[in-house]
C-alpha cells in the first residue's frame, strides 16, 4: 500500500476460531486514513468476523488491534463508537418496533446521553444534520413497515450521524437499487473529502472496484491479497475464487410451447396484466417501479397457488425470516415440504435424496442433524433451493435468489437452474442483478404502470 498515508487502524496477527472452524487465521492488515478500503471475499470467509472483532462485538483469540498506534481492546460496540468507529452491520441493527426518529435518537443517545426524549427537538436536529444526498425515510414511520431498501437507507444515515473517524459498512449496498448505489457512492466520496476512513465489506466485485482505493481479499480466514485497487485486475480476483472453473452453461433454449398457466395480475397501479408461463422457461419479471418488483413475486405466488394441478415454490428475498427454520436441522429444513408425501416416508429414500441434493449443490456441512444456523449464508441458500428441488416443483418463483451469497454458490445455483429448465421446469425470476438476468432469462416481461392521472 501507499506508504505516504497515515495508518489509522491496524490489525496485528489476529486469530479467531469457533469450535473447530478457523474464522480468521493470523490476519494482519492496516487501514489508511481518509481512504476507502474494501474487504472482498465470499460468505463465510471471515470478513464480518474481522469487523466484529475491531468493533468489540466479538473477542479475538489472539493478536492485537491498534487505533492511531494505540492498542485497543473494546469490550462492546459502544466503546468502539465512543472512540470514533461506527459500524453498520449486515442486518442493519435497527429497532424494528420503534420509529425512524426513535432509532436515530437512541443511537445518538449513546454518544450524548440524555434522559428527556423530546420529539420536536430531535426532529429539528435530524432535519438539520442529516445527509442530503441519500433519500431519508419518513421520520415517523415504524421501522417494521419500511421496505428493505428504506431500512438500508436508514442504516446508512444512522451510521453517518455519529460523525465517526472510521465508518464500516458491512454489505450495505445489497438492498440498494442502481441509482441508490450511485447516491451511496456520492456519500462515500463526501466522507473521503472530510478525511474520514471508510471500510466497505462486500461480495459485489463491481461495486468494490467502483468505490475503493485499497482492496483486501480474504478467503477462508486468510488475507490472500492486499493492494491499491489500480494494481488489481478484476479477472484475477474472480479466478482466485473459481478454482473449480465453473463454466456457466448458456445452452440453447429448449423450445417447449406447452403452456402451464395464464395468470392475471392486479396490483397497485398495474391492473389486469396477464402472464403466460410455459414449460421450460425462465421469465424475468420487472416493473418500472423497483420497490414493487419484490412484491410482485409474492402476489404471483399467491395467485399460482390456486392452480390445483401445479406445484409452485418460492424463494423469498429474505432468507432468514421467510425461508428457513433456524431452529431446525439441515435435514428437517430440506424435507419440511415433502415429508408428508408417501414416497418420502422411507428413511432410506430420505437419505438418498438428501445426499443427492448435497452432491448436486456442493453443500458444505458436518452432519445432517447439524442446526442450519451453523451454516454460512451461501450454504443456507443452497438448502432453500434444494428443498424445492426435492418437492419436484413445476414453477419456482425466485426473488433475488443469489443476493448476499458468494460466487461459488451463485454459480452452483445458476447451473442448476439452467439444468432444471432444460428438463422442463419453469422459473419466474425477479432480480436486480443484471448479470443474472442475462445468464438465465429466456424471456423478459416488463409490466408498466399506468401514468398517474392528476
Amino acid at each position: 500500500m501507499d506508504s505516504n498515508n497515515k495508518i489509522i487502524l491496524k490489525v496485528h496477527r489476529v486469530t479467531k476460531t469457533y469450535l473447530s472452524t478457523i474464522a480468521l487465521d493470523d490476519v494482519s492488515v492496516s487501514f489508511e486514513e481518509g481512504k476507502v478500503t474494501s474487504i472482498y471475499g465470499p460468505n463465510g470467509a471471515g470478513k464480518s468476523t474481522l469487523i466484529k472483532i475491531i468493533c468489540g462485538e466479538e473477542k479475538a483469540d489472539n493478536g492485537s488491534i491498534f487505533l492511531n498506534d494505540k492498542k485497543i481492546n473494546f469490550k462492546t460496540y459502544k466503546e468502539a463508537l465512543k472512540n470514533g468507529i461506527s459500524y453498520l452491520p449486515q442486518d442493519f441493527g435497527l429497532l424494528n418496533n420503534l420509529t425512524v426518529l426513535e432509532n436515530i435518537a437512541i443511537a445518538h443517545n449513546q454518544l450524548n446521553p440524555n434522559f428527556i426524549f423530546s420529539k420536536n427537538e430531535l426532529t429539528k436536529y435530524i432535519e438539520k444534520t442529516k445527509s442530503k444526498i441519500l433519500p431519508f425515510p419518513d421520520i415517523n414511520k415504524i421501522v417494521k413497515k419500511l421496505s428493505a431498501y428504506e431500512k438500508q437507507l436508514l442504516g446508512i444515515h444512522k451510521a453517518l450521524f455519529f460523525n465517526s473517524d472510521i465508518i464500516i459498512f458491512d454489505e450495505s449496498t445489497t438492498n440498494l437499487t442502481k441509482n441508490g448505489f450511485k447516491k451511496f457512492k456520492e456519500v462515500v466520496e463526501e466522507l473521503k473529502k472530510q478525511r474520514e476512513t471508510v471500510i466497505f465489506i462486500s461480495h459485489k466485485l463491481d461495486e468494490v472496484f467502483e468505490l475503493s482505493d485499497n482492496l483486501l481479499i480474504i478467503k477462508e480466514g486468510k488475507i490472500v491479497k492486499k493492494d491499491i485497487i489500480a494494481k488489481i485486475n478484476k479477472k484475477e480476483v474472480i479466478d482466485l475464487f473459481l478454482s473449480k472453473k465453473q463454466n456457466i452453461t448458456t445452452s440453447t433454449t429448449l423450445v417447449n410451447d406447452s403452456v402451464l398457466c395464464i395468470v392475471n395480475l392486479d396490483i397497485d397501479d398495474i391492473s389486469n396484466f396477464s402472464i403466460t408461463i410455459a414449460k421450460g422457461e425462465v421469465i424475468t419479471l420487472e416493473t418500472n417501479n423497483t420497490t414493487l418488483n419484490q412484491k410482485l413475486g409474492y402476489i404471483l405466488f399467491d395467485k399460482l397457488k390456486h392452480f390445483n394441478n401445479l406445484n409452485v415454490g418460492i424463494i423469498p428475498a429474505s432468507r432468514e425470516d421467510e425461508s428457513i427454520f433456524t431452529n431446525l436441522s439441515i435435514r428437517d429444513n430440506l424435507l419440511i415440504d415433502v415429508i408428508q408425501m408417501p414416497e418420502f416416508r422411507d428413511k432410506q429414500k430420505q437419505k438418498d435424496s438428501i445426499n443427492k441434493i448435497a452432491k448436486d449443490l456442493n453443500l458444505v456441512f458436518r452432519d445432517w442433524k447439524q442446526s442450519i444456523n451453523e451454516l454460512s449464508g451461501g450454504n443456507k441458500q443452497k438448502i432453500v433451493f434444494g428443498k424445492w428441488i426435492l418437492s419436484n416443483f413445476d414453477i419456482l418463483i425466485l426473488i433475488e435468489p443469489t443476493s448476499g451469497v458468494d460466487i461459488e454458490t451463485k454459480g452452483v445455483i445458476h447451473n442448476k437452474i439452467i439444468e432444471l429448465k432444460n428438463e422442463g421446469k419453469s422459473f419466474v425470476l425477479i432480480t436486480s442483478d443484471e448479470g443474472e438476468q442475462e445468464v438465465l432469462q429466456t424471456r423478459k416481461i416488463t409490466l408498466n404502470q399506468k401514468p398517474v392521472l392528476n
Partner: protein
Amino acid sequence: MLAILIIVFGIINPVFLKISNLFNILSQNSIIGIVSLGMTLVIIIGGIDLSVGSVVAFTGMLFAILVSNGMPIFIAIIISIIAGIGFGFINGALIIKGKIPAFIATLGMMSAARGGTLLISGSKSVSIGNSSLNSIVNLSIAGITVPSFVFIVLTIILFLFLNKTYWGKYLYAIGGNEKAALFNGINVPLFTLLAYIIGGLMCSFASILLVGSLNSAQPQAGQLYELTAIAAVVIGGASLSGGKGSIIGTFIGVLILGVIQNGLSILNVPSYYQYILIGTIIIISVLVDKKFN
C-alpha cells in the same frame, strides 16, 4: 369500546350512569389498576409477572404486622416499599442472571410469596387497629378517592416515563428485539431489572392502599390479580410478545374491565357470567391484535 360499554349499560340501567357510580368504578378498580401499570412495563419488555397478586398480599401483610406491632406508619410504608422492590429485583435477577423464562421465575415467586404471607401471618388476617391510614385512604374530594387519585398520578408519571424519556424508549426497544437493543448500546439487563422493580414497587403501593381501605391485611389478598392485570394490559393494546403497549391503553383497559363488572352487577348478572365474559374479552382482544398486526 369503553364509551360504547358505558352507553349500553347506561341505556339498560340509568343507575349505572350516575356520576357517583362512575367515580365508584374508578375507585374500586384503582388498586388493581396500579398493579396493571407495573405489569404494562413488564409486558412491554417482553416479560410477564405472575407474582403480582402474592407480592401485594405479602407486602400488605408485612405492612400490617409492622403497624400492629407499633411501628410508625411512615416507616412501615417505606419497609413495605423496599420489600416490593426486593421482589421485583429477585424476579428480574432470576430472569437476567439465571436465564430462567419470566413465566417460570415469576410463577415460582407467586407460590413463594404466597407461602411467605401465610407464614408471617399464621394464615390469619391482621388488623392495623384504629390507624389514621384508614381515614386518609377513605378520604374523598369531589368524588375522587385517595386510591383513584394515586392511580391517576401514577398513570401520568409512568406515561411521561414511557413516552418522554429515553429510558422508556429503551424498554420498548428491548421488547422489540433484545439483540438489536444490545447493539444500539442499551444496557438490556439493567433495564429489564428496572421494569420488574417498577412492577414490584407498584405492588407495594397497591397493597398499602388495600390494607388502608380495609383496615386490615388478608392472607388471601390479591388472588387472581395477575390475571386481571394481564387482561387490562392486553385489552389496552399491548402485545404479549413484547415491544408494544401503552399506559393510557392500560388505564382504559382497567376501566373497561371495571365497567363490565359494575354494569353486570347492577343488572344482577351472576358473577360467573362475568368471568366468562372477561375471559372472552381477553381472547378477542388478542385475536384482534393478531389480525391487525
